[in-house]
C-alpha cells in the first residue's frame, strides 16, 4: 500500500531485565506515535518499564549469505568459552 506508515522495531526493557530486548515491530507515522503504539501493543500485560523504537530502515543488518565467513571461524575456537575455569563460590551469581 502506497500510504503505509513506516515500519518500526520495538525494544522493551522488562521489570527485571537490565537490557532492552527486541519484542517485535509495528507501523506508525512518527516516533512519538511509534512509542504510543508500542505501549499499547507490547506492554498490555505489564511487560515493560522502558520502550525504545527505531525505524526499521535505520537498522544495518548482516547478510544471511555471509553466514560462512562471519560465523563459522568461531565454531572451532572452544577455548574462547570460559567453561574451563572453576568459579569460586565467593563470586556468587554471575
Amino acid at each position, binding site marked *: 500500500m502506497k500510504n503505509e*506508515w513506516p515500519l518500526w522495531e520495538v525494544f522493551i526493557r522488562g521489570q527485571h531485565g537490565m537490557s532492552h530486548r527486541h519484542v517485535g515491530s*509495528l*507501523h*506508525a*507515522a512518527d516516533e*512519538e*506515535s511509534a512509542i*504510543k*503504539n508500542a*505501549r*499499547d*501493543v507490547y506492554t*498490555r500485560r505489564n511487560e515493560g518499564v522502558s520502550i525504545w523504537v527505531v525505524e526499521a530502515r535505520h537498522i544495518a543488518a548482516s547478510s544471511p549469505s555471509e553466514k560462512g565467513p562471519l560465523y563459522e571461524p568461531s565454531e572451532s575456537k572452544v577455548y574462547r568459552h570460559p567453561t574451563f575455569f572453576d568459579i569460586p563460590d565467593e563470586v556468587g551469581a554471575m
Partner: protein
Amino acid sequence: MSAYFEFLLRMGDNTLILGHRVSEWCGHAPVIEEDIALANTALDLIGQTQLWLGLAAEVEDKGRTADDLAMLRDAWDFRNVLMVEKPNGDFGQTLMRQFLFDAFHLEMLKGLTTSSKPRVAEIAAKAVKEVQYHVERSGDTVIGLGDGTAESHARMQDALNFMWPYVGEMFASDDVDAEMLSTGIAPDLTQLRIAFDAHVGAVMADATLTIPDSTFAHKGGKSGFQHTEHLGHILTQMQWLQRAYPGASW
C-alpha cells in the same frame, strides 16, 4: 435518588457508554495498532465503570450491584452526557469525541483526587493515570489528522463541528453538581471549563482546526431528561444477553 448516588451514576455511565461505543471499533479500526489502542481505551473505561457503579450501588444500598446498574436499567435511568452516546461515525469523528471527552474527563478526575469522599478520591487517583494517556493519544491523533491531508483536515473539522454542541452539557451545572461542590465531593465545573478551554484551544490550534463560534449545548443526558435516540440502540446490544438469559455468567 440522592445527589451523591446520581453523581456516581454520571461518572460510571459516561465511562460505560463511551467504553461500549469505543469497543465497537474492535476488529474494524483502520490499522491494527489503532485497533489495539482503542480496545485498550475501551477496557480502561469499562474498568473505571466497575469502580464507579460499584460505589454507586453501595451508596444506594438497595442490594443492587454494579452489574445490575449497568445491565438492568433502561435508557431513562442512565445519566451519561449525550456526547458519549453519539455514533462513532468515521475514525476522525470517534477520535474527536474521544479527545473532547478525555479533556473534560482528565480535569474532572484531577479535581476528584482531592474529593471529601476518600473512596471517590481513590478511584479518581487510579483512573486519572489511564485518562492522562487517553488524552495524550487522542490529542495527538486530532493534531495529526487535523494538520494532515486536505481530506483528513476536512473530516476533522466536520467532526469538531458535529461534536461541539455536545461539549456544553459536560460543564452545565445543575442541583446535583451544586451539591457535590458545596459538600466538597466534586470540583467546580466552571473552573474545569477554563482548564478545558485552554487545553482544547491549544490542541485545535496545532491541529489547524477552528472551534465553532457557538455556545449552544444539547442537554438532557446527565439529568436523564432526554437522551438521544442512540442510547436505546446501544442498550439493546449491550444488555441483550442479561435480558435474554437473566443471571447468566461465566
